[in-house]
């Protein structure tokens, strides 16, 4: 296992109390695995990604351990994490389009960044050019300012930048959401290629778009209101999921081939609970058609089949 997360709990400190954004999450990612992380907005998927690399205030680590390549990741310690950031754990942030310094040429910025990690830019230049080739960018971009690039090009540039030092874990946060379908496909496929070539060992792809995950992810982890709902290989999640939330989420997706006049899709009634004072037990209880008395108790995240983890009392029964 490349990444092991055990009982990770992260709260947001606010004036009105603690927001329980991430509640005892336990999961693992194998070497070379691309794990998709999906859920509604506010379900804690970005919090999970962020807490693995940059756990700053108002985020607060309550408990939990994270190990990467059998070494403990000191996620609660901003200073010590610095030795791991960019080298071992790297992120393509949600705002990748605006992630680059607008006043600096891209090449110069890459050099600065590498210098801050005591890596020689000159010696990495051939490798950088090889990777630019892979993402179909010309070397000229190094002499350009970010404003001269289109959104998709910037996204690809940041992708190369984030993986420059071959991290063990790459967190890709909503990297395709702001792109057009054609660049969306290209960027997703490049991510897979990066993994295949060993530029990054394991990848967490955070997105709300399950149909993109179906194309590229090996496994999918579904979150709901700060808790893990289900994790399984992609095909299992899409075709034979066990958690009622996953089932409903998949059935609400409109896709080409489904028309209103022929088949009317149903949404999930209600909304997710407020996490300031989250309800006890299963947090999906309020919206769940299968809920019964036992759901007042929090269901454990257990393996019902091989590699298939579900947090639901009704699952597997």
């Amino acid at each position, binding site marked *: 296992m490349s990444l092991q997360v055990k009982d990770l709990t992260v709260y947001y400190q606010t004036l009105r109390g603690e927001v329980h954004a991430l509640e005892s999450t336990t999961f693992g990612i194998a070497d070379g695995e691309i794990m998709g992380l999906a859920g509604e907005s506010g379900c804690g998927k970005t919090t999970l990604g962020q807490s693995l690399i940059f756990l700053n205030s108002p985020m607060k680590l309550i408990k939990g351990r994270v190990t990467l390549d059998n070494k403990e990741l000191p996620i609660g310690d901003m200073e010590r994490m610095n030795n791991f950031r960019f080298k071992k754990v790297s992120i393509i942030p949600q705002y990748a389009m605006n992630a680059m310094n607008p006043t600096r040429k891209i090449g110069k910025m890459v050099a600065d960044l590498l210098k801050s990690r005591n890596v020689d830019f000159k010696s990495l230049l051939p490798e950088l050019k090889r990777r630019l080739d892979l993402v179909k960018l010309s070397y000229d971009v190094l002499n350009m300012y970010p404003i001269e690039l289109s959104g998709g090009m910037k996204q690809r540039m940041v992708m190369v930048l984030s993986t420059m030092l071959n991290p063990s874990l790459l967190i890709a946060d909503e990297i395709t959401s702001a792109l057009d379908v054609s660049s969306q496909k290209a960027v997703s496929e490049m991510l897979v290629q990066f993994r295949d070539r060993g530029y990054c060992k394991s990848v967490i792809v955070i997105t709300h778009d399950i149909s993109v995950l179906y*194309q590229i992810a090996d496994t999918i982890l579904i979150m709901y209101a700060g808790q893990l709902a289900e994790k399984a290989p992609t095909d299992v999640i899409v075709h034979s999921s066990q958690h009622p939330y996953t089932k409903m989420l998949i059935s609400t997706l409109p896709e080409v081939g489904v028309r209103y006049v022929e088949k009317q899709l149903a949404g999930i009634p209600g909304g997710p609970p407020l996490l300031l004072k989250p309800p006890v037990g299963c947090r999906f209880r309020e919206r769940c058609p299968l809920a019964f008395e036992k759901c007042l108790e929090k269901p454990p995240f257990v393996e019902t089949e091989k590699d298939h983890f579900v947090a639901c009392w009704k699952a597997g029964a």
Partner: protein
Amino acid sequence: MSRAGRQVPEEMLTLDGVSKVYRVGTFGGKSLVAVNDVSFDVGDSEVVSLIGESGSGKTTIGKMILHLTSISSGAIRFNGVDVSRLNGRARKEYYRHVQGVFQDPFSSYNPIFKADRIFRTIREEFFPKTDSHEWNEKIDSSMRAVGLNPDEVLNKFPHQLSGGQLQRFLIARALLLDVQFLVADEIISMLDASTRVGVLNLLAELKSRGLSILFITHDLSLGYYISQKSVILYRGCVVEMGPTEQVYHHPLHPYTKMLMACVPRLGMKWECGEIEVTNPKVKQPDLPSGCAYYDRCPVAGNKRDCSTSPSLVEVELGHFVACWRQTKQES
């Protein structure tokens, strides 16, 4: 355009050769054609989806219909009346029938006022004579029409409501007027999967009650789900339009074909192949000459054909495509 000579019954909304040219550059010395000679129409109780990537001009078209930007050339006709240069009172009357809802529900509201303030402004502007009892009933019925429970959502601030609720609020606001045409500009792109279907179904329901909708989106699956007619835009030009089923299942323009192949679908993996990326090397020319898709087109020939812009040609009933290749094959 080519259909000008044909006798067609007057549709609810007709765009006739509409263009929008922006002045860009230091002293406005250059021009940028955002929308180039676009013609299509929307019939009674019809949902037309306008699909294109970012920068293709789809929002500009919506804004021109709503009079938020001026039109450089061409005409927009609403129920047979040219509305492209309305002013003053006539324009306000126009807004009684044509309304828009936009992408970001949170920035559509003023955060320091309660969300239902949008109803009050409508009343002050359009219904000053209605007494408050009647007005409250009107609000009540239009809230219920969009699937909101008035007791739950009235008297709240925007941050206390969810994105889906705020979007429904805006639709309810449009329904207060005698609205016949709704411009829905990416209204569900910012909503979650679980709530977006609800708003989508609401649009379909309103359509069955006689409302016409221009559904602007970049998400092809949403367009397929709801619309009868699809218009595909590329760099301000209509490259293909027709009944949704035909456009999606038998795309004729190479751009449409490429789009359809890129849509991520559940249960169907992308065909593996060479990753195609096109960096926009050729900047948009000042004056449109040649096919807009020329520099990305896989089937473009070096023949002089592709260097003049193709016009829309009807290849099947109601299915138009603007591609020289296509017209060649058909002839």
